């Protein structure tokens, strides 16, 4: 029943404190969190690795170990979730929109187990759906690109053509237009199937075609396809913008910035809430304000961004957080105002 040895007095103490508030009434036991990664794998230098680091931070603080599973194909996702649920793990965190259907199914089978999903939309009494305001970070990236471009043409390469990716492209175009209404934004999607996430060759060709048309900064939100995009951009001596995690180090000097998604923060948050008994099902949306979405500024891209430009981006960021600048969310009405 208890394959993972959860020891440590910290937890026992915490559990005792929580006795009254813990949902499910299993106060004597502390939580047994688990993670099911998405197909990108645990060490993908991006999304999944961010989740892993968030969970590690939680472990370092509380001493609570977590179960983890890295599926190698779609079918294993559901098996992994069910395995953890059967063994009594809770909360179980699924990474990526691919897991929405499996989580919906498994969550219904185990109503007492808490589930959480990142980037997925699941409505169930025991599921917490965590999503991000990618459009806010993308807005800043678009603004930064518009301030930096020399040709007044910037580009975007997305992976699969789904509303999630349109959120990125729409925010990017809005940010660029906020700086320069006449700027040309070329938006390309790699494909309409899952294969669009793993086609660096096509990503590179899309980037080449954009560069030929005069584009000098390209933002990618295309998973592994994006590696091809950033490679081509660097080979051509132009600037790329990374996504999800800090990709500035991939091609120093050719990476303007990266739009980082705080999946680690979200992971830590959902585990901590479960531990404290404040965990709630439903939708949680994290953005610039929660510092769950941000642009990466570090030594790698410092030479590319002047102090003036940095100040304007910081001001824009403050305006968005204060609500003075509204960024349209594509997912609300499946429409981009630009």
């Amino acid at each position, binding site marked *: 029943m208890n394959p993972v040895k959860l020891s440590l007095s910290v937890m026992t103490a915490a559990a005792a404190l929580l006795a009254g508030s813990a949902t499910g009434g299993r106060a004597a036991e502390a939580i047994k969190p688990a993670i099911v990664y998405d197909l990108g794998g645990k060490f993908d230098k991006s999304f999944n690795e961010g989740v892993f680091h968030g969970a590690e931070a939680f472990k370092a603080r509380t001493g609570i170990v977590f179960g983890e599973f890295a599926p*190698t194909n779609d079918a294993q996702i559901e098996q992994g979730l069910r395995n953890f649920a059967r063994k009594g793990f809770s909360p179980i965190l699924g990474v990526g929109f691919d897991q929405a259907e499996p989580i919906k199914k498994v969550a219904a089978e185990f109503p007492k187990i808490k589930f959480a999903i990142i980037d997925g939309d699941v409505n169930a009494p025991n599921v917490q759906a965590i999503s991000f305001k990618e459009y806010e970070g993308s807005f800043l990236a678009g603004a930064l690109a518009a301030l930096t471009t020399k040709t007044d043409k910037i580009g975007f390469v997305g992976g699969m053509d789904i509303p999630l990716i349109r959120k990125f492209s729409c925010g990017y175009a809005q940010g660029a237009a906020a700086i320069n209404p006449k700027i040309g934004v070329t938006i390309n999607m790699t494909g309409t199937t899952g294969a669009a996430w793993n086609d*660096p*060759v096509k990503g590179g*060709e899309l980037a080449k075609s954009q560069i030929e048309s005069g584009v000098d900064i390209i933002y990618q939100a295309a998973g*592994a396809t994006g590696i091809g995009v950033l490679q081509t951009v660097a080979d051509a001596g132009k600037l790329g913008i990374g996504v999800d995690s800090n990709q500035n180090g991939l091609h120093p000097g050719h990476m303007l910035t990266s739009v980082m998604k705080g999946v680690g923060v979200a992971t830590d948050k959902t585990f901590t809430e479960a531990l404290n008994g404040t965990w709630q099902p439903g939708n949680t949306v994290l953005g610039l304000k929660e510092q769950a979405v941000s642009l990466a500024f570090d030594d790698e891209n410092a030479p590319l961004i002047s102090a003036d430009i940095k100040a304007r981006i910081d001001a824009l960021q403050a305006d968005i957080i204060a609500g003075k600048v509204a960024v349209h969310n594509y997912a609300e009405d499946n429409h981009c105002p630009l």
Partner: protein
Amino acid sequence: MNSLIPLLDATIRVSVPLVLAGLAGLFSERGGVIDIGLEGKMLAAAFASASVAAVTGSPWLGLAGGIAVSLVLALLHGFASITHRGNQVVSGMAINILVAGLTVTLGMAWFQQGGQTPVLPPSARFQELILPGATSLADVPVLGALYSHLLSGHSILVYLAYALVPGAWWALNRTRFGLRLRAVGENPAAVDTAGLSVTGLRYRGVLIAGLLCGIAGTYMATAQSAGFVRDMTAGKGYIALAAMIFGKWRPFPTLAACLLFGLLDALAIRLQGVAIAGIGEIPVQFIQALPYILTVFLLAGFIGTSIPPKADGIPFVKER
């Protein structure tokens, strides 16, 4: 002209894996062995070449690694379908499925980057070659532009791939080996009667296919992009097979079919998000379906009957 040259340039680049894999299928099938496993062999070669190049830092060692792994898979296909007379389609499909899983699993175990190989530095990749005089001739109208932008600036594997097309034609139609290989695909019993080894000839055809798929996979991982990503062949092996059937199992028509697919691919990339006069912006989905729609259209009426080698797919059983 300004938009035409980049389009043709892209066509040349994206057609290379199709041309190599198409020729690979052609050698295998002219010898009477169906090769559905082009996709798997390319994918395995892509993974092997990227891994070797990442570890050693040499694209040439990567190429050697890619070819070696592809040859091993070709031997496996030969062993199942020639030596043991198994179903050739099943064997090829098994290779595709095996490789799709194995590359990712090995990649995760070796590099811990979710099945990808590390990003290759420029020194570990096949770089674009600038042909002599390309920069100085760039300003000459038409011909200079064609030479410096279209012909120059590709990696050595691109030139190799296109040089292999006449080579394949010559080998098949002008050499003793080619005659025998074709005979083995049409009427293996006659070849056997003449005292030649059907098994040996078919193995040679299958191994040539392995060699060519090895180069194709290496091109994708170390020239076109900078490393291996799961399923990066993205169905090119199957498209190459279709191109070979379009090309009626002949090298030059196969090249033409590959270039047509490449052109459609390059066109699809450039048409995305572009408004066309009188029609407006074409949806992404339609553009991406275009190559397949055209395939059906061409197959239905334009290329005429395409007749495979007579003994294609039939295991040879020696009469006793």
